[in-house]
Protein backbone atom coordinates (compact mmCIF):
# COMPACT_ATOMS: atom_id res chain seq x y z
CA UNK A 1 0.00 0.00 0.00
CA UNK A 2 2.88 2.34 0.80
CA UNK A 3 4.38 2.51 -2.68
CA UNK A 4 1.53 4.06 -4.60
CA UNK A 5 0.59 6.54 -1.93
CA UNK A 6 4.14 7.65 -1.40
CA UNK A 7 4.51 8.24 -5.15
CA UNK A 8 1.45 10.50 -5.01
CA UNK A 9 2.70 12.26 -1.87
CA UNK A 10 6.20 12.77 -3.29
CA UNK A 11 4.80 14.20 -6.53
CA UNK A 12 2.52 16.57 -4.63
CA UNK A 13 5.38 17.62 -2.35
CA UNK A 14 7.66 18.32 -5.31
CA UNK A 15 4.89 20.35 -6.90
CA UNK A 16 4.06 22.17 -3.64
CA UNK A 17 7.62 23.18 -2.86
CA UNK A 18 8.25 24.20 -6.48
CA UNK A 19 5.10 26.33 -6.28
CA UNK A 20 6.38 27.97 -3.07
CA UNK A 21 9.90 28.59 -4.30
CA UNK A 22 9.84 29.26 -8.06
CA UNK A 23 8.51 32.85 -7.59
CA UNK A 24 11.14 33.62 -4.94
CA UNK A 25 13.95 32.09 -7.00
CA UNK A 26 12.85 33.90 -10.17
CA UNK A 27 12.90 37.18 -8.23
CA UNK A 28 16.46 36.44 -7.08
CA UNK A 29 17.62 35.52 -10.60
CA UNK A 30 16.07 38.62 -12.18
CA UNK A 31 17.62 40.87 -9.56
CA UNK A 32 20.96 40.11 -11.27
CA UNK A 33 19.62 40.92 -14.72
CA UNK A 34 21.34 43.71 -16.64
CA UNK A 35 18.16 44.72 -18.49
CA UNK A 36 15.69 47.25 -17.15
CA UNK A 37 12.93 45.15 -18.73
CA UNK A 38 13.31 42.75 -15.77
CA UNK A 39 12.05 39.62 -17.51
CA UNK A 40 14.22 39.80 -20.63
CA UNK A 41 17.61 38.33 -19.71
CA UNK A 42 20.46 40.57 -20.85
CA UNK A 43 23.38 39.22 -18.88
CA UNK A 44 24.58 39.14 -15.27
CA UNK A 45 24.91 42.43 -13.46
CA UNK A 46 24.80 43.84 -9.96
CA UNK A 47 23.82 47.32 -11.11
CA UNK A 48 20.39 47.16 -9.42
CA UNK A 49 22.05 46.58 -6.07
CA UNK A 50 24.13 49.70 -6.66
CA UNK A 51 20.99 51.58 -7.71
CA UNK A 52 19.24 50.36 -4.55
CA UNK A 53 22.08 51.73 -2.40
CA UNK A 54 21.56 55.14 -3.97
CA UNK A 55 17.77 55.14 -3.80
CA UNK A 56 17.27 57.51 -0.88
CA UNK A 57 13.49 57.08 -0.92
CA UNK A 58 13.71 53.31 -0.37
CA UNK A 59 16.56 53.62 2.15
CA UNK A 60 14.73 56.26 4.21
CA UNK A 61 11.61 54.12 4.19
CA UNK A 62 13.63 51.08 5.28
CA UNK A 63 15.21 53.03 8.16
CA UNK A 64 11.78 54.27 9.26
CA UNK A 65 10.28 50.78 9.08
CA UNK A 66 13.19 49.36 11.07
CA UNK A 67 12.75 51.97 13.80
CA UNK A 68 9.01 51.37 14.04
CA UNK A 69 9.47 47.59 13.97
CA UNK A 70 11.98 47.62 16.86
CA UNK A 71 9.87 49.91 19.08
CA UNK A 72 6.75 47.93 18.17
CA UNK A 73 8.34 44.55 18.87
CA UNK A 74 9.57 45.70 22.27
CA UNK A 75 6.26 47.27 23.28
CA UNK A 76 4.20 44.38 21.94
CA UNK A 77 6.40 41.83 23.71
CA UNK A 78 6.01 43.65 27.05
CA UNK A 79 2.23 44.05 26.78
CA UNK A 80 1.69 40.65 25.17
CA UNK A 81 3.73 38.87 27.84
CA UNK A 82 1.69 40.56 30.60
CA UNK A 83 -1.56 39.55 28.89
CA UNK A 84 -0.32 35.99 28.31
CA UNK A 85 0.77 35.73 31.96
CA UNK A 86 -2.61 36.98 33.21
CA UNK A 87 -4.51 34.55 30.97
CA UNK A 88 -2.33 31.52 31.74
CA UNK A 89 -1.63 32.00 35.46
CA UNK A 90 -4.33 34.01 37.21
CA UNK A 91 -7.10 31.43 37.00
CA UNK A 92 -10.61 32.84 36.77
CA UNK A 93 -10.66 36.56 37.45
CA UNK A 94 -13.23 39.20 36.73
CA UNK A 95 -12.89 40.41 33.15
CA UNK A 96 -10.94 37.34 32.02
CA UNK A 97 -13.43 36.61 29.24
CA UNK A 98 -13.17 40.21 28.06
CA UNK A 99 -9.35 40.16 28.03
CA UNK A 100 -9.26 36.78 26.33
CA UNK A 101 -11.73 38.01 23.71
CA UNK A 102 -9.75 41.18 23.06
CA UNK A 103 -6.56 39.13 22.68
CA UNK A 104 -7.98 36.71 20.10
CA UNK A 105 -10.15 39.19 18.18
CA UNK A 106 -7.29 41.08 16.46
CA UNK A 107 -6.07 37.75 15.05
CA UNK A 108 -9.29 37.15 13.09
CA UNK A 109 -10.00 40.78 12.26
CA UNK A 110 -9.61 41.72 8.59
CA UNK A 111 -6.78 44.24 8.30
CA UNK A 112 -8.87 46.84 6.49
CA UNK A 113 -11.26 46.98 9.47
CA UNK A 114 -8.49 47.30 12.08
CA UNK A 115 -6.83 50.02 10.01
CA UNK A 116 -10.02 51.99 9.44
CA UNK A 117 -11.14 51.78 13.08
CA UNK A 118 -7.74 52.91 14.42
CA UNK A 119 -7.61 55.85 12.05
CA UNK A 120 -11.11 56.95 13.07
CA UNK A 121 -10.05 56.67 16.73
CA UNK A 122 -6.98 58.84 16.13
CA UNK A 123 -9.05 61.46 14.31
CA UNK A 124 -11.65 61.51 17.10
CA UNK A 125 -8.95 61.72 19.81
CA UNK A 126 -7.26 64.58 18.02
CA UNK A 127 -10.57 66.45 17.87
CA UNK A 128 -11.29 65.85 21.56
CA UNK A 129 -7.93 66.18 23.33
CA UNK A 130 -5.55 67.33 20.60
CA UNK A 131 -3.49 64.14 20.78
CA UNK A 132 -2.09 62.56 18.65
CA UNK A 133 -1.40 65.70 16.61
CA UNK A 134 -1.66 64.49 13.04
CA UNK A 135 -0.73 61.04 11.80
CA UNK A 136 2.79 59.70 11.58
CA UNK A 137 5.33 57.48 13.31
CA UNK A 138 3.46 57.57 16.65
CA UNK A 139 0.13 56.48 15.25
CA UNK A 140 1.74 53.73 13.12
CA UNK A 141 3.62 52.42 16.17
CA UNK A 142 0.49 52.41 18.36
CA UNK A 143 -1.46 50.60 15.64
CA UNK A 144 1.28 47.99 15.19
CA UNK A 145 1.61 47.36 18.93
CA UNK A 146 -2.15 46.84 19.15
CA UNK A 147 -2.35 44.02 16.64
CA UNK A 148 1.03 42.41 17.24
CA UNK A 149 0.68 42.25 21.04
CA UNK A 150 -2.23 39.90 20.45
CA UNK A 151 0.05 37.47 18.58
CA UNK A 152 2.67 37.68 21.34
CA UNK A 153 -0.01 37.09 24.01
CA UNK A 154 -1.20 33.92 22.25
CA UNK A 155 2.38 32.60 21.89
CA UNK A 156 3.12 33.34 25.57
CA UNK A 157 -0.16 31.94 26.82
CA UNK A 158 0.30 28.64 25.00
CA UNK A 159 3.93 28.39 26.17
CA UNK A 160 3.03 29.15 29.79
CA UNK A 161 0.12 26.72 29.67
CA UNK A 162 2.43 23.75 29.03
CA UNK A 163 5.05 24.94 31.53
CA UNK A 164 5.12 22.98 34.79
CA UNK A 165 3.76 25.27 37.49
CA UNK A 166 5.36 23.31 40.33
CA UNK A 167 8.69 25.17 39.98
CA UNK A 168 6.97 28.50 40.49
CA UNK A 169 4.90 27.11 43.35
CA UNK A 170 8.00 25.71 45.04
CA UNK A 171 9.73 29.09 44.87
CA UNK A 172 6.66 30.82 46.32
CA UNK A 173 6.40 28.21 49.09
CA UNK A 174 10.02 28.99 49.94
CA UNK A 175 8.99 32.61 50.41
CA UNK A 176 9.96 34.24 47.11
CA UNK A 177 7.69 37.11 46.15
CA UNK A 178 5.73 36.79 42.88
CA UNK A 179 7.81 39.44 41.10
CA UNK A 180 11.02 37.64 42.08
CA UNK A 181 9.56 34.29 41.01
CA UNK A 182 8.68 35.75 37.64
CA UNK A 183 12.16 37.14 36.97
CA UNK A 184 14.15 34.23 38.48
CA UNK A 185 12.06 31.21 37.44
CA UNK A 186 9.37 31.93 34.86
CA UNK A 187 11.17 34.36 32.58
CA UNK A 188 14.38 32.32 32.07
CA UNK A 189 12.34 29.23 31.17
CA UNK A 190 10.07 31.02 28.69
CA UNK A 191 12.84 33.22 27.27
CA UNK A 192 12.88 31.40 23.89
CA UNK A 193 9.13 32.05 23.57
CA UNK A 194 9.69 35.71 24.48
CA UNK A 195 12.34 35.98 21.76
CA UNK A 196 10.06 34.21 19.27
CA UNK A 197 7.29 36.66 20.19
CA UNK A 198 9.62 39.62 19.70
CA UNK A 199 10.69 38.38 16.26
CA UNK A 200 7.09 37.68 15.28
CA UNK A 201 6.02 41.20 16.32
CA UNK A 202 9.01 42.65 14.48
CA UNK A 203 8.10 40.80 11.25
CA UNK A 204 4.41 41.70 11.50
CA UNK A 205 5.28 45.38 11.79
CA UNK A 206 8.03 45.32 9.15
CA UNK A 207 5.62 43.67 6.66
CA UNK A 208 2.44 45.57 7.38
CA UNK A 209 1.01 47.55 4.49
CA UNK A 210 -2.74 47.83 5.00
CA UNK A 211 -2.95 49.07 8.60
CA UNK A 212 0.03 51.41 8.11
CA UNK A 213 -1.57 52.93 5.02
CA UNK A 214 -4.63 53.93 7.04
CA UNK A 215 -2.79 55.48 9.98
CA UNK A 216 0.27 56.95 8.19
CA UNK A 217 0.52 60.64 7.49
CA UNK A 218 2.51 62.63 4.97
CA UNK A 219 6.24 62.02 5.42
CA UNK A 220 5.81 58.75 7.31
CA UNK A 221 5.84 56.26 4.44
CA UNK A 222 7.10 52.92 5.66
CA UNK A 223 8.95 50.49 3.38
CA UNK A 224 5.83 48.46 2.41
CA UNK A 225 3.97 51.69 1.54
CA UNK A 226 6.81 52.86 -0.74
CA UNK A 227 7.25 49.40 -2.31
CA UNK A 228 3.51 49.09 -2.91
CA UNK A 229 3.27 52.43 -4.68
CA UNK A 230 6.32 51.42 -6.79
CA UNK A 231 5.10 47.96 -7.82
CA UNK A 232 1.60 49.21 -8.58
CA UNK A 233 3.22 50.81 -11.60
CA UNK A 234 4.78 47.49 -12.65
CA UNK A 235 7.83 45.35 -11.92
CA UNK A 236 10.96 47.16 -10.83
CA UNK A 237 14.48 45.69 -10.85
CA UNK A 238 15.40 47.60 -7.69
CA UNK A 239 12.53 45.96 -5.82
CA UNK A 240 13.88 42.58 -7.01
CA UNK A 241 17.26 43.45 -5.50
CA UNK A 242 15.61 44.58 -2.25
CA UNK A 243 13.53 41.38 -2.09
CA UNK A 244 16.62 39.24 -2.63
CA UNK A 245 18.46 40.91 0.25
CA UNK A 246 15.45 40.51 2.57
CA UNK A 247 14.94 36.84 1.64
CA UNK A 248 18.63 36.10 2.28
CA UNK A 249 18.51 37.80 5.70
CA UNK A 250 15.44 35.79 6.71
CA UNK A 251 16.94 32.54 5.38
CA UNK A 252 20.15 33.18 7.31
CA UNK A 253 18.19 33.97 10.46
CA UNK A 254 16.13 30.80 10.16
CA UNK A 255 19.20 28.63 9.60
CA UNK A 256 20.95 30.16 12.63
CA UNK A 257 17.83 29.73 14.78
CA UNK A 258 17.42 26.13 13.56
CA UNK A 259 21.04 25.22 14.38
CA UNK A 260 20.78 26.94 17.78
CA UNK A 261 17.55 25.11 18.68
CA UNK A 262 19.00 21.75 17.59
CA UNK A 263 22.12 22.33 19.67
CA UNK A 264 20.01 23.27 22.71
CA UNK A 265 17.88 20.17 22.23
CA UNK A 266 21.02 17.99 22.18
CA UNK A 267 22.42 19.69 25.28
CA UNK A 268 19.17 19.16 27.15
CA UNK A 269 19.13 15.47 26.21
CA UNK A 270 22.74 15.13 27.41
CA UNK A 271 21.91 16.92 30.69
CA UNK A 272 18.97 14.63 31.29
CA UNK A 273 21.12 11.56 30.61
CA UNK A 274 23.87 12.81 32.91
CA UNK A 275 21.35 13.52 35.65
CA UNK A 276 19.92 10.03 35.29
CA UNK A 277 23.40 8.49 35.28
CA UNK A 278 24.41 10.43 38.40
CA UNK A 279 21.33 9.21 40.21
CA UNK A 280 21.83 5.62 39.08
Amino acid sequence: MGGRRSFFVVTMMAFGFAFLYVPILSMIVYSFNESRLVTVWAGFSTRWYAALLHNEQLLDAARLSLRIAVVNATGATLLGTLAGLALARFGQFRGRALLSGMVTAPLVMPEVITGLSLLLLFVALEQMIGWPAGRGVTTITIAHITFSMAYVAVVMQSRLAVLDESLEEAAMDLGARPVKVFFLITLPIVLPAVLAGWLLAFTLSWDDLVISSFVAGPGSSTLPIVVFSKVRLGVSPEVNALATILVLIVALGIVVAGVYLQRQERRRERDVQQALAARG
Partner: protein
Amino acid sequence: MRRWSLGAGRFAVTAVPALWLLLFFAVPFLIVLKISVSGMRLGMPPYEPLITWASSLVFELRVHLDHYAFLWQDPLYRNAWLNSLQVAAVSTLLCLLLGYPLAWGIARATPAWRNLLLLLIMLPFWTSFLLRVYAWLGILKNNGLINNTLLALGVIDRPIVMLQTDFAVYLGIVYSYLPFMVLPLYAAIEKLDQTLLEAAADLGCRPFRAFLAVTLPLTWGGIVAGSLLVFIPAVGEFVIPALLGGPDSLMIGRVLWEEFFNNRDWPVASAVAIAMLLLLVLPIVVFQHVQGRTPVVR
Protein backbone atom coordinates in the same frame (compact mmCIF):
# COMPACT_ATOMS: atom_id res chain seq x y z
CA MET B 1 0.74 43.46 53.51
CA ARG B 2 1.98 40.57 51.41
CA ARG B 3 -1.51 39.75 50.15
CA TRP B 4 -2.19 43.34 49.27
CA SER B 5 0.96 43.72 47.20
CA LEU B 6 0.16 40.42 45.50
CA GLY B 7 -3.29 41.70 44.58
CA ALA B 8 -1.99 45.05 43.34
CA GLY B 9 0.69 43.35 41.22
CA ARG B 10 -1.84 41.01 39.69
CA PHE B 11 -4.15 43.90 39.02
CA ALA B 12 -1.41 45.85 37.23
CA VAL B 13 -0.34 42.85 35.13
CA THR B 14 -3.93 42.41 33.94
CA ALA B 15 -4.97 46.04 33.72
CA VAL B 16 -2.13 47.41 31.58
CA PRO B 17 -2.68 45.20 28.50
CA ALA B 18 -6.45 45.22 29.06
CA LEU B 19 -6.62 49.03 29.07
CA TRP B 20 -4.41 49.23 25.97
CA LEU B 21 -6.69 46.84 24.09
CA LEU B 22 -9.83 48.56 25.34
CA LEU B 23 -8.63 51.96 24.17
CA PHE B 24 -7.03 50.95 20.87
CA PHE B 25 -9.07 47.92 19.87
CA ALA B 26 -12.55 47.94 21.45
CA VAL B 27 -13.35 51.67 21.57
CA PRO B 28 -12.46 52.25 17.88
CA PHE B 29 -15.31 49.92 16.89
CA LEU B 30 -17.79 52.13 18.73
CA ILE B 31 -16.45 55.08 16.75
CA VAL B 32 -16.77 53.14 13.47
CA LEU B 33 -20.34 52.27 14.45
CA LYS B 34 -21.06 55.92 15.25
CA ILE B 35 -19.63 57.21 11.98
CA SER B 36 -21.47 54.57 9.98
CA VAL B 37 -24.75 56.20 11.09
CA SER B 38 -23.55 59.79 10.72
CA GLY B 39 -24.37 61.98 7.78
CA MET B 40 -21.75 62.64 5.13
CA ARG B 41 -20.43 66.17 4.63
CA LEU B 42 -17.58 67.82 2.81
CA GLY B 43 -14.60 68.85 4.92
CA MET B 44 -12.39 67.26 7.50
CA PRO B 45 -13.46 65.01 9.11
CA PRO B 46 -15.97 64.21 6.36
CA TYR B 47 -18.92 63.31 8.56
CA GLU B 48 -21.51 65.21 10.58
CA PRO B 49 -21.62 65.05 14.36
CA LEU B 50 -24.19 62.53 15.59
CA ILE B 51 -25.34 64.76 18.41
CA THR B 52 -25.83 68.51 18.07
CA TRP B 53 -26.30 70.49 21.27
CA ALA B 54 -29.00 73.12 20.96
CA SER B 55 -28.52 74.23 24.57
CA SER B 56 -26.86 72.61 27.55
CA LEU B 57 -29.86 70.35 28.08
CA VAL B 58 -31.47 69.97 24.70
CA PHE B 59 -29.72 68.06 22.02
CA GLU B 60 -30.59 66.66 18.65
CA LEU B 61 -29.63 63.09 17.76
CA ARG B 62 -29.48 62.35 14.07
CA VAL B 63 -29.08 58.73 13.09
CA HIS B 64 -28.68 58.02 9.40
CA LEU B 65 -29.34 54.45 8.37
CA ASP B 66 -29.18 55.35 4.70
CA HIS B 67 -25.58 54.11 4.32
CA TYR B 68 -26.70 50.61 5.22
CA ALA B 69 -29.70 50.91 2.90
CA PHE B 70 -27.28 52.06 0.22
CA LEU B 71 -25.06 48.99 0.76
CA TRP B 72 -28.11 46.78 0.48
CA GLN B 73 -29.50 48.42 -2.65
CA ASP B 74 -26.35 49.06 -4.67
CA PRO B 75 -25.44 45.77 -6.42
CA LEU B 76 -21.75 46.76 -6.30
CA TYR B 77 -21.42 45.94 -2.61
CA ARG B 78 -23.49 42.77 -2.72
CA ASN B 79 -21.50 41.48 -5.70
CA ALA B 80 -18.19 42.38 -4.07
CA TRP B 81 -19.23 40.59 -0.90
CA LEU B 82 -20.46 37.43 -2.68
CA ASN B 83 -17.39 37.45 -4.92
CA SER B 84 -15.09 37.72 -1.86
CA LEU B 85 -16.81 34.74 -0.23
CA GLN B 86 -16.52 32.71 -3.42
CA VAL B 87 -12.85 33.57 -4.03
CA ALA B 88 -12.00 32.85 -0.39
CA ALA B 89 -13.91 29.54 -0.35
CA VAL B 90 -12.39 28.23 -3.59
CA SER B 91 -8.89 29.31 -2.53
CA THR B 92 -9.33 27.63 0.85
CA LEU B 93 -10.36 24.39 -0.87
CA LEU B 94 -7.37 24.55 -3.25
CA CYS B 95 -5.04 25.24 -0.30
CA LEU B 96 -6.47 22.21 1.47
CA LEU B 97 -6.08 19.93 -1.58
CA LEU B 98 -2.47 21.02 -2.06
CA GLY B 99 -1.62 21.43 1.63
CA TYR B 100 -2.87 18.06 2.89
CA PRO B 101 -0.44 15.88 0.88
CA LEU B 102 2.34 18.35 1.68
CA ALA B 103 1.64 18.19 5.42
CA TRP B 104 1.29 14.40 5.19
CA GLY B 105 4.64 14.03 3.44
CA ILE B 106 6.37 16.27 5.99
CA ALA B 107 4.85 14.45 8.97
CA ARG B 108 5.89 11.07 7.56
CA ALA B 109 9.44 12.07 6.59
CA THR B 110 12.52 11.08 8.60
CA PRO B 111 13.24 13.53 11.46
CA ALA B 112 16.16 15.22 9.68
CA TRP B 113 14.14 15.75 6.50
CA ARG B 114 11.11 16.81 8.53
CA ASN B 115 12.97 19.70 10.16
CA LEU B 116 14.38 20.85 6.84
CA LEU B 117 10.98 20.71 5.11
CA LEU B 118 9.31 22.57 8.00
CA LEU B 119 11.96 25.27 7.71
CA LEU B 120 11.22 25.49 3.99
CA ILE B 121 7.51 25.96 4.77
CA MET B 122 8.30 28.61 7.40
CA LEU B 123 10.73 30.62 5.27
CA PRO B 124 8.13 32.24 2.96
CA PHE B 125 5.99 32.80 6.06
CA TRP B 126 8.68 35.09 7.54
CA THR B 127 9.41 36.92 4.27
CA SER B 128 7.46 39.92 3.15
CA PHE B 129 3.94 39.11 2.04
CA LEU B 130 3.92 42.07 -0.33
CA LEU B 131 7.15 41.02 -2.04
CA ARG B 132 5.94 37.43 -2.47
CA VAL B 133 2.77 38.67 -4.19
CA TYR B 134 4.92 41.01 -6.25
CA ALA B 135 7.06 38.07 -7.41
CA TRP B 136 4.07 36.78 -9.38
CA LEU B 137 3.94 39.98 -11.42
CA GLY B 138 7.21 39.02 -13.12
CA ILE B 139 5.96 35.50 -13.77
CA LEU B 140 2.43 36.18 -15.00
CA LYS B 141 2.78 39.30 -17.11
CA ASN B 142 2.54 39.20 -20.89
CA ASN B 143 6.31 39.15 -21.36
CA GLY B 144 6.84 37.34 -18.07
CA LEU B 145 8.48 34.03 -17.23
CA ILE B 146 5.58 31.73 -18.22
CA ASN B 147 4.70 33.46 -21.47
CA ASN B 148 8.34 33.83 -22.53
CA THR B 149 9.00 30.15 -21.85
CA LEU B 150 5.90 28.99 -23.71
CA LEU B 151 6.63 31.32 -26.63
CA ALA B 152 10.24 30.11 -26.83
CA LEU B 153 9.07 26.49 -26.80
CA GLY B 154 6.59 27.28 -29.54
CA VAL B 155 3.61 26.04 -27.50
CA ILE B 156 1.77 29.33 -28.03
CA ASP B 157 2.26 32.04 -30.63
CA ARG B 158 0.86 34.95 -28.66
CA PRO B 159 1.03 35.57 -24.92
CA ILE B 160 -1.78 34.35 -22.68
CA VAL B 161 -3.22 37.15 -20.55
CA MET B 162 -2.90 35.98 -16.97
CA LEU B 163 -2.26 39.14 -14.98
CA GLN B 164 -5.32 41.16 -13.93
CA THR B 165 -7.58 38.13 -14.08
CA ASP B 166 -9.44 36.17 -11.42
CA PHE B 167 -7.03 33.30 -12.09
CA ALA B 168 -4.15 35.46 -10.84
CA VAL B 169 -6.11 36.35 -7.69
CA TYR B 170 -6.78 32.67 -6.87
CA LEU B 171 -3.15 31.85 -7.54
CA GLY B 172 -1.93 34.69 -5.33
CA ILE B 173 -4.19 33.73 -2.42
CA VAL B 174 -3.33 30.01 -2.57
CA TYR B 175 0.37 30.87 -2.79
CA SER B 176 0.34 33.39 0.08
CA TYR B 177 -1.77 31.39 2.50
CA LEU B 178 -0.50 27.85 1.83
CA PRO B 179 1.83 27.85 4.89
CA PHE B 180 -1.13 28.81 7.13
CA MET B 181 -2.88 25.64 5.91
CA VAL B 182 0.12 23.31 6.05
CA LEU B 183 1.25 24.07 9.63
CA PRO B 184 -2.00 23.20 11.50
CA LEU B 185 -2.48 20.17 9.20
CA TYR B 186 1.06 19.03 9.96
CA ALA B 187 0.42 19.39 13.71
CA ALA B 188 -2.73 17.25 13.42
CA ILE B 189 -1.21 14.57 11.15
CA GLU B 190 1.93 14.30 13.27
CA LYS B 191 -0.20 13.40 16.30
CA LEU B 192 -2.09 10.75 14.34
CA ASP B 193 -1.36 7.24 15.59
CA GLN B 194 0.11 5.35 12.63
CA THR B 195 -0.80 1.97 14.12
CA LEU B 196 -4.48 2.73 13.56
CA LEU B 197 -3.87 2.79 9.80
CA GLU B 198 -1.82 -0.41 10.02
CA ALA B 199 -4.65 -2.05 11.93
CA ALA B 200 -7.13 -0.92 9.27
CA ALA B 201 -4.88 -2.33 6.54
CA ASP B 202 -4.45 -5.64 8.42
CA LEU B 203 -8.21 -5.93 8.63
CA GLY B 204 -8.41 -5.58 4.85
CA CYS B 205 -9.37 -1.94 4.59
CA ARG B 206 -8.26 -0.32 1.34
CA PRO B 207 -6.04 2.77 1.70
CA PHE B 208 -8.61 5.21 0.40
CA ARG B 209 -11.31 3.92 2.73
CA ALA B 210 -8.89 3.95 5.64
CA PHE B 211 -8.16 7.57 4.79
CA LEU B 212 -11.87 8.45 4.85
CA ALA B 213 -12.71 6.40 7.93
CA VAL B 214 -9.63 6.96 10.10
CA THR B 215 -7.31 9.72 8.92
CA LEU B 216 -9.85 12.34 7.94
CA PRO B 217 -11.91 12.33 11.18
CA LEU B 218 -8.77 12.27 13.33
CA THR B 219 -7.20 15.24 11.56
CA TRP B 220 -10.46 17.20 11.34
CA GLY B 221 -9.29 19.73 13.95
CA GLY B 222 -6.29 20.62 11.80
CA ILE B 223 -8.46 20.91 8.70
CA VAL B 224 -10.86 23.32 10.44
CA ALA B 225 -8.03 25.41 11.96
CA GLY B 226 -6.13 25.63 8.68
CA SER B 227 -9.24 26.47 6.68
CA LEU B 228 -10.20 29.29 9.05
CA LEU B 229 -6.67 30.69 8.93
CA VAL B 230 -6.91 30.84 5.14
CA PHE B 231 -10.58 31.76 4.69
CA ILE B 232 -10.87 34.70 7.11
CA PRO B 233 -7.97 36.83 5.87
CA ALA B 234 -8.71 35.85 2.26
CA VAL B 235 -12.23 37.35 2.45
CA GLY B 236 -10.89 40.75 3.50
CA GLU B 237 -7.78 40.56 1.31
CA PHE B 238 -6.70 43.83 -0.28
CA VAL B 239 -3.11 43.49 -1.56
CA ILE B 240 -3.63 40.45 -3.81
CA PRO B 241 -6.68 41.72 -5.76
CA ALA B 242 -5.09 45.17 -5.96
CA LEU B 243 -1.83 43.89 -7.47
CA LEU B 244 -2.86 40.77 -9.41
CA GLY B 245 -6.58 41.27 -10.06
CA GLY B 246 -8.18 43.29 -12.81
CA PRO B 247 -10.14 46.50 -12.27
CA ASP B 248 -13.35 44.48 -12.22
CA SER B 249 -12.22 41.80 -9.77
CA LEU B 250 -14.18 43.18 -6.86
CA MET B 251 -13.41 42.08 -3.36
CA ILE B 252 -14.92 43.65 -0.27
CA GLY B 253 -11.58 44.66 1.29
CA ARG B 254 -10.64 46.51 -1.87
CA VAL B 255 -14.08 48.18 -2.02
CA LEU B 256 -13.67 49.44 1.55
CA TRP B 257 -10.17 50.71 0.72
CA GLU B 258 -11.34 52.56 -2.38
CA GLU B 259 -14.43 53.95 -0.67
CA PHE B 260 -12.14 55.39 1.97
CA PHE B 261 -9.06 56.51 0.03
CA ASN B 262 -10.47 57.33 -3.41
CA ASN B 263 -14.02 58.50 -2.66
CA ARG B 264 -13.23 59.80 0.84
CA ASP B 265 -16.62 58.53 1.94
CA TRP B 266 -15.92 57.69 5.59
CA PRO B 267 -19.52 56.88 6.60
CA VAL B 268 -19.97 54.32 3.79
CA ALA B 269 -16.51 52.81 4.47
CA SER B 270 -17.53 52.49 8.14
CA ALA B 271 -20.82 50.87 7.19
CA VAL B 272 -18.92 48.34 5.02
CA ALA B 273 -16.64 47.60 8.00
CA ILE B 274 -19.59 47.07 10.37
CA ALA B 275 -21.36 44.87 7.81
CA MET B 276 -18.20 42.76 7.41
CA LEU B 277 -17.93 42.43 11.18
CA LEU B 278 -21.51 41.22 11.49
CA LEU B 279 -21.38 38.89 8.50
CA LEU B 280 -17.86 37.46 8.84
CA VAL B 281 -16.21 37.95 12.21
CA LEU B 282 -19.25 37.43 14.43
CA PRO B 283 -20.25 34.02 12.95
CA ILE B 284 -16.65 32.84 13.26
CA VAL B 285 -16.34 33.97 16.88
CA VAL B 286 -19.60 32.15 17.67
CA PHE B 287 -18.38 29.07 15.80
CA GLN B 288 -15.09 29.10 17.72
CA HIS B 289 -16.98 29.48 20.96
CA VAL B 290 -19.18 26.50 20.14
CA GLN B 291 -16.11 24.48 19.16
CA GLY B 292 -14.60 25.53 22.48
CA ARG B 293 -11.12 26.36 21.26
CA THR B 294 -9.18 29.22 19.72
CA PRO B 295 -7.55 28.87 16.32
CA VAL B 296 -3.91 27.85 16.16
CA VAL B 297 -2.15 30.99 15.09
CA ARG B 298 1.25 31.19 13.43
